[in-house]
């Protein structure tokens, strides 16, 4: 197996771990939010300042978390994964 191919395999494995990690974070954050709603309504009803309850703040934070995870993924894959793929494709064309 050539160097570029090994690098692609490594980067692909890293991307898979990142995908699983980000999916797990999203699931935990979202399910945690639902569990809080289900089991601790009074806590979420806490009013932090006029017009802002803890529930609304956390809800908006869940949406922001989704955005943040997407950004992390796109940034990482654009920077690392795509380069490894491009190198590997180039190496194969030259090798032929």
């Amino acid at each position, binding site marked *: 197996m050539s160097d570029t191919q090994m690098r692609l395999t490594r980067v692909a494995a890293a991307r898979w771990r990142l995908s699983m990690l980000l999916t797990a974070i999203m699931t935990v954050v979202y399910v945690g939010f639902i*569990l809080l709603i289900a089991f601790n309504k009074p806590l979420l009803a806490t009013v932090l300042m006029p*017009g802002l309850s803890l*529930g609304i703040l956390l809800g908006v934070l869940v949406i922001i978390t989704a955005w943040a995870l997407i950004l992390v993924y796109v940034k990482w894959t654009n920077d690392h994964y795509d380069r490894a793929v491009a190198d590997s494709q180039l190496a194969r064309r030259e090798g032929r």
Partner: protein
Amino acid sequence: MQTGEPNVVAMAGFAIFIGLSLVITWFAARRTRSTEHFYAAGRSISAIQNGLALAGDYMSAASFLGIAGLVALSGFDGLIYSIGFLVGWPVVMCLIAEPLRNLGKFTFSDVVAFRLRQEPVRVAAAAGSLAVVAFYLIAQMVGAGNLIRLLFGLSYETAVVIVGMVMLAYVLFGGMIATTWVQIVKAVLLLLGAFLLAMMVLMKFSFNPLALFAEASRLYGVGVLAPGRLVSDPVDAISLGLALMFGTAGLPHILMRFYTVPDARTARVSVAYATAAIGGFYLLTFILGFGAMVLVGQPAIRAVDAGGNMAAPLLAEVVGGQAFLGFIAAVAFATILAVVAGLTLAGAAALSHDIYVHVFRHSRATEKEQLLVARGATILLAVFSIVLGIAFKGQNVAYMVGLAFAIAASANFPALLLSMFWRPFTTRGAQMSILFGTAATLILIWLSPTIQMDLLGNKTAYFPYRNPGLFTIPLSFIVGIVTSLLAPETAATEGFARLEHQIHLGEEEPA
């Protein structure tokens, strides 16, 4: 607001949208010469275009009018839905979008069948797709009929027929190119409409959303800022949450969009645009809901429609007068049309590309024949949706969207994921997982309080929960895994290396 009274601006806006979209369709039709154009817009859609089109496919009238109404009548609880509809997108991004683009051609069945035996897998995957499309389509059609009756004063049947015919024109002649551009126009209109409306509301509160929420809690009690009755049973809440989260990654009309872009990188970036647009839209919807609660008032919203669906249009009338009401009504109509077109195209692809081409013709159909069958399937689905839309008149179909998401999460998502990432997966495993996921979801919903108590009027239900996802999603994975382990399939396991290669490089491994 006089419901059922034709509004001149609404009619004009509606006519302009239909006219514009038919012009788009005419241009698209001239470019639609092959199945690659018909199903995948010639793979020429850019990241931002596909991002908007994904958002257009996803933001239905239900999420615009329904969630605004839910927030207006019950405050915080509406936020729970908005969030559920958004959190599926990181899952689509991380697990589905790129491999799907690199492995498949037109439908998600292409991916499941990649290294498995084509015919049995295609039949099962097409069944899963069609089940999702059918329930989603009926819900949209019934919603369209009711909404257009309220907004434009047309009869329910007329409205359903108009939606069916216009949508048929888009898909039949313009295929994916027309459908994509209709989605883009609709997404921009919807985002613009929601943004303008939210700004007009916030203007009255010196652009401070918290002042708006504070006013709402002063008028209706601080309870509107806290979780209410919507989530009463934790099991049901988690179950619904999981279906929304993983269902997005199993919706055929969403998955199909990833084939319209040139490569995996574009697919990835398009999800980022889509998530930004959808998340922003739901945050705006939240402002609109509270705006309607404060500026229109709950009694006035309930007086027009007990479900609260007219909250956003009523709000538009209060802050912007008849003209703005007309604009928002026209946007709502455009929204319905676009979503219905996307669903129909996905259904037609399952019928013609999966069933006809790969099962009946054993992949030997000519290009011309394939296009003909795809168009025939489109007409069939349009007639089907008009007939069922009329047949389900007056039914509460809110649970049907939930059902569509539950089937997508329990039938399509596990098979798709296992086929891409789990080496020992077999043909039989895929078949069983999809069929089990579909059947279990349908049966559990039939036995649930939603059907047994609310619809049939029985005193008890056989299954205590309204949302089956918590049970059916893991079980569907288990069925797929156990079936595969019981009878290994050498060819499928050997094909995994080829699949991995193509997932990353997007091209076939040289022989």
